[in-house]
């Protein structure tokens, strides 16, 4: 990565959608929306709802499947100067491994992000990220079939993130992404209906940032592998906070939806912060919080 800033899966489509209004080649990496083996219809609508300081979503991982992705979106992505991180998922351990194998065979992929933490699907996703044994099985199965860097995207919905982070590290995950959205709900008091067709969804945006920073800090205490920190980043100050908590890189998520320039502003802002504080290498910031435990 040419800089420590990527975008969170599901908030940047497949890269091409934003290419008209931002120079995608300035990002550290492009992370695409979650893909499983076959096409996915997704959930009924409404799928998102705005809440104070953020939003809820329950998209249901609508997607084109591996073949559809390769045909429709890969030609644009492989032409980029920056690496593509492909977020993958399945409903069985075998499916995760098969998707990993397919992308390993494709050639030119930057890394695979194992989505074991989506809260909005009945099968797959968070069921793997909230059970330490299943998580270990998914990572191990993917590790067996690919030499691509593996990033495990951790669920926040666990009593302590440390054992999960360690399990992923032990099974050969090269990095962690911390964190996914938080299970949440909103109700329209006039109609008494949930604001999402799925009833519950995942909370993202600035509202979750302090919780995500704590999760990054806890995960960083537990493992030696690098962490991509994410959760409500709106500007460089937010990003630096994640780095100080222990992240090596960061991802901009929900902010892409309302301000597509955010990731580029974060990259420039981190540079300004480093110049101001006379920091030569961004890696010096990682884990530099003065917190004794």
């Amino acid at each position, binding site marked *: 990565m040419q800089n420590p800033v990527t975008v969170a899966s*599901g*908030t*940047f*489509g497949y890269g091409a*959608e*934003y290419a*008209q*209004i931002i120079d995608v080649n300035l990002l550290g990496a492009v992370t695409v*929306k979650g893909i499983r083996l076959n096409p996915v*219809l*997704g959930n*009924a*609508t*409404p*799928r*998102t709802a*705005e809440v*104070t*300081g*953020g*939003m809820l*979503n329950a*998209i249901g991982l*609508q997607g084109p499947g591996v073949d559809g992705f390769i045909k429709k979106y890969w030609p644009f992505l492989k032409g980029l100067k920056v690496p593509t991180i492909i977020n993958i998922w399945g409903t069985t351990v075998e499916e995760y491994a098969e998707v990993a194998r397919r992308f390993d065979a494709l050639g030119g992929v930057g890394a695979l992000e194992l989505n074991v933490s989506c809260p909005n699907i009945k099968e797959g996703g968070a069921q793997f990220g909230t059970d330490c044994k299943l998580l270990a099985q998914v990572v191990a199965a993917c590790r067996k079939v690919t030499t691509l860097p593996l990033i495990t995207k951790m669920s926040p919905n666990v009593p302590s993130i440390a054992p999960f982070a360690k399990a992923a590290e032990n099974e050969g995950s090269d990095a962690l992404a911390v964190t996914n959205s938080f299970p949440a709900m909103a109700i329209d008091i006039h109609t008494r209906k949930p604001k999402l*067709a799925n009833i519950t969804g995942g909370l993202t*945006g*600035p509202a979750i940032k302090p919780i995500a920073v704590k999760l990054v800090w806890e995960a960083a205490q537990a493992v030696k592998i690098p962490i991509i920190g994410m959760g409500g980043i709106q500007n460089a100050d937010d990003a630096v906070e994640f780095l100080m908590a222990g992240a090596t890189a960061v991802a901009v998520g*929900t*902010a*892409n*939806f*309302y*301000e*597509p*320039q955010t990731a580029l502003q974060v990259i420039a802002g981190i540079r300004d912060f480093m110049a101001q504080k006379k920091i030569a290498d961004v890696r010096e910031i990682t884990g530099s919080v003065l917190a004794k435990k």
Partner: protein
Amino acid sequence: MLEQTVQIISNERDTDSYFRLVLRAPEIAPLIQPGQFAHVRILPMKDALLRRPFSIFQATGDAFSILYKTVGKGTEVLSRMRAGQEVSAIAPLGHGFTVPKAGGETPLLVAGGYGMAAMFLLAQRSPQKGIVFVGGRRRVDILCEQEFAAIGWEVRAMTEDGSHGEKGLVTHPLIAELQKRLPDRKVFACGPTPMLKAVGKIAEDFNVPAELSMDEHMCCGVGTCLTCVIPVKAGDSWEYQRTCTEGPVFDSREIVWEAAK
């Protein structure tokens, strides 16, 4: 599609809770096609973060305008903004109406409330003049009649309470018009979803093509978040397509109403 910070030229009350917002956007304005929308970030809003999508009403020279109704906190804050203040706009967005070709179909426009504004550019750029049927609950819900009259269009207004035009639903005069069975006509509609569904059915009954501008809850506006999807025919089945990208305007025969909700 451009993302720009643009200045408000004016933001005046039209009728009741409707406002007309004019934005100076010299680079965006010439790109606008009928039926497209602008995704606006209302910068003074700090806790409600998402952009709001608005159909584009007029585009002339270096400016474009929006006719909106105050329906929630976003439009509430927007309605208090004044000339000289700025908003961020991503525009023009979406797949709009097919403008009739010279000598082609005669357009019949069907509008519900401020849906009328979203069809003004279509009327203005159509080589054939047609009829616009507009419906609303009360007199104040009937907007921009003068603009349509000024470009030589016939306006047939309907109100549910009979306070303006004739009393009844907008679909009544549409059915009466289609019963004349005149050749080469095409229906274009913008308004609330139940109205669009009814118009689509009527057009199908009379075997007249129809383009519907769908109004769905939106988030990113550019095709990444998959919030604003509707069921659209795909082979023997259907798939979710994005109102912000494949739409907002769809051929009514492609929409799979029974799969929605």
